[in-house]
């Protein structure tokens, strides 16, 4: 799959190179495709795999198919290796590099060199601090706030809530918690009876919840940064049913509960850090290179579903594992991007054109 695509372009490139060896200038300068490369760090979890699959799928769909020549690289969480790969991309004289970085600061040196050589750098998800890099991200404070707002509304501002937090010491965890706390402060009727980490991992969240539940009073609402399906399973195992209103991440398992699963149905709000950030980055890079978009950072809204908007086969998939991230696509009328599930699962192209809507320039 990957090899084929690359080998073909490689053969084509070397073939053209041989033909053109005696000719001056670049033979395909007139309608040259934009060279856009994805430099990813860690690839060991579902989110990153879905993200990379979306990128591969997009490259086989219009308008990217005819306008962009893409490539992708993983370095693991090894900064020097990612740095060396980016050096390689600079050597290949790509037009743009899209980066999900192994370190927010560790690549600043090499990325600075890339921008100095006129290469556009777009960083997303684990964004870099290099000032010359364009950043595409979501607002993590809003993430925590929206989840909390949902619970306040469902509980009419009164009740016991647990907070299942993320990986301590990360920027994202801190921001999400701060977002939630800003809401609790305005609603003194809401009591946070416990706050423990789920490590953004369903099995850890389930284990920690199971351990802590016996000591807790009746829970009226669950606020969960990640591993939501695990938390709900622990509630069921402890016979704390019916399940309380739950605000959580975009695990397919959680959304299954929202549509009815394990003979339970939960009233929920599901928000996610979408893997399609990579598609937004790709689109932004294409638009900036074609000079139809200013060089500006963008923040995209989170994709979210509630019980009234969640849709089987579109934003929840009964046949897929609970750990699948169901937010590979946006939904609704103002969707940032809509893409089929095969793209996230296998990296295959979907039917039709891929339309990525960048936030309007306000």
């Amino acid at each position: 799959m990957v090899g084929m695509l690359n080998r073909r372009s490689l053969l084509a490139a070397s073939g053209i190179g041989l033909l053109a060896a005696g000719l001056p200038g670049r033979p395909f300068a007139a309608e040259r495709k934009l060279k856009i490369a994805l430099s990813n760090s860690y690839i060991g979890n579902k989110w990153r795999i879905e993200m990379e699959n979306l990128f591969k799928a997009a490259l086989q769909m219009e308008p990217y198919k005819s306008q962009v020549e893409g490539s992708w690289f993983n370095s693991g969480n090894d900064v020097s290796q990612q740095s060396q790969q980016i050096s390689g991309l600079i050597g290949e004289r790509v037009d743009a590099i899209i980066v999900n970085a192994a370190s927010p600061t560790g690549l600043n040196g090499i990325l600075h060199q890339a921008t100095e050589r006129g290469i556009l750098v777009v960083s997303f998800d684990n964004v870099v601090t290099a000032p010359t890099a364009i950043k595409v991200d979501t607002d993590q404070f809003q993430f925590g706030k929206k989840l909390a707002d949902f619970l306040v509304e469902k509980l009419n501002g009164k009740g016991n809530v647990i907070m299942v937090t993320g990986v301590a010491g990360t920027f994202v965890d801190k921001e999400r918690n701060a977002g939630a706390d800003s809401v609790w402060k305005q609603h003194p009727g809401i009591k946070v009876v416990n706050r423990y980490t789920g490590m953004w991992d369903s099995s850890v969240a389930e284990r920690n919840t199971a351990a802590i539940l016996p000591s807790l009073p009746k829970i009226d609402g669950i606020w969960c940064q990640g591993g939501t399906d695990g938390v709900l399973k622990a509630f069921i195992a402890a016979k704390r049913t019916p399940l309380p209103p739950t605000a959580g991440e975009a695990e397919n398992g959680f959304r299954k509960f929202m549509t009815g699963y394990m003979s339970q149905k939960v009233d929920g709000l599901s928000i996610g850090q979408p893997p399609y950030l990579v598609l937004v980055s790709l689109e932004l890079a294409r638009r900036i290179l074609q000079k139809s978009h200013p060089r500006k950072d963008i923040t995209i809204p989170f994709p979210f579903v509630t019980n009234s908007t969640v849709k089987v086969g579109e934003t929840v998939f009964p046949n897929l594992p609970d750990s699948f991230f169901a937010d590979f696509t946006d939904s609704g009328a103002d969707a940032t991007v809509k893409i089929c599930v095969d793209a996230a699962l296998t990296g295959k192209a979907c039917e039709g054109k891929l339309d990525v809507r960048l936030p309007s320039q306000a």
Partner: protein
Amino acid sequence: MPPDAAATLAARPQRRPRAAHVLGQNIGLVLAAAILLASAVVFTLMFVIQQQRLPGSFEITSTVNNTMPLAVAAIGQTVVVLTRGIDLSVGGVIDLTNALAAIFLAGSPLHMIVVSILVVLVGAGAGLVNGLLVGLGRLQPIVVTLATLSIFQGLAIRVLPQPGGSVPAGYTNLLVNPDAPTALIFLAVAILGWMALRRSRLGVELFAVGNDEAAAVALGVNALRTKIVAYSIAGALYAVAGLFLAANATSGDATTGNSYTLTSIVAVVLGGVSLFGGRGSAIGAICGAFITTMIVNILFYAHINPLYQAFYEGLFLVVAVVLGSLIGNLLRRRG
């Protein structure tokens, strides 16, 4: 009358020609250099085929600059491995010194020099702790340094909880000039330092302790002191690696050093340094460090499926190590 030294030497039957002897003694180094040369040739060929030009100043400079931290760390690891030890705390020391550098470096040139020296001293202090535990405590190096690895990593996070800080541009230009491979000068200095060490009393003692500690002690070598000094020198070198890493990144991250624990051992092994101690050269380890970067470069231009990249990296390493030891054995038997 004492026997005439020259006469006795001449009378002794020569076991093998001098060139073969030197080759036999330095087989690890020679093989490392050969693998490095071969990988550089493969890389150049792939580059020319795809880019229709020779690797230029940028490619050479970025390869050198990206390899500098590993090359320096590998020298430190070599010194420890020569004493029949192993140092897993590399990553922690680099994390810590890298974090310190990112926070405190900014300032006047004099300030930068002072801070750099202090950071190197912190590294040496970390190494001293390892050396004392290994030497005085008579503990297994792998256990000691695994424990101190976590301790230094923890300290690094305390120093720099979130990636940040900044390294002045002048400092970056001095250590890892992005426009020319001037960092090679530092490598040359390191190699000269190694050659001096090799010929010094301490150098002889390092090899002696690694080859046969009991025999070395019987001959009057202070094994305890030798080990403590070895770990301290290594710690100082890891700190230098941390400074290079900070200069290259232009800022700090208290976790970016972690990968150097394993890669420094890989570089040492590729460099023909025996993990059983007493045999090897820091120059080989430097070659080993550059080989690992070359492997990344080659895989980059091979455009293999990124998902299998780690697999191929491992494969390259195994092939290189197995080939190296096979050829080494063959040559030694013939000699």
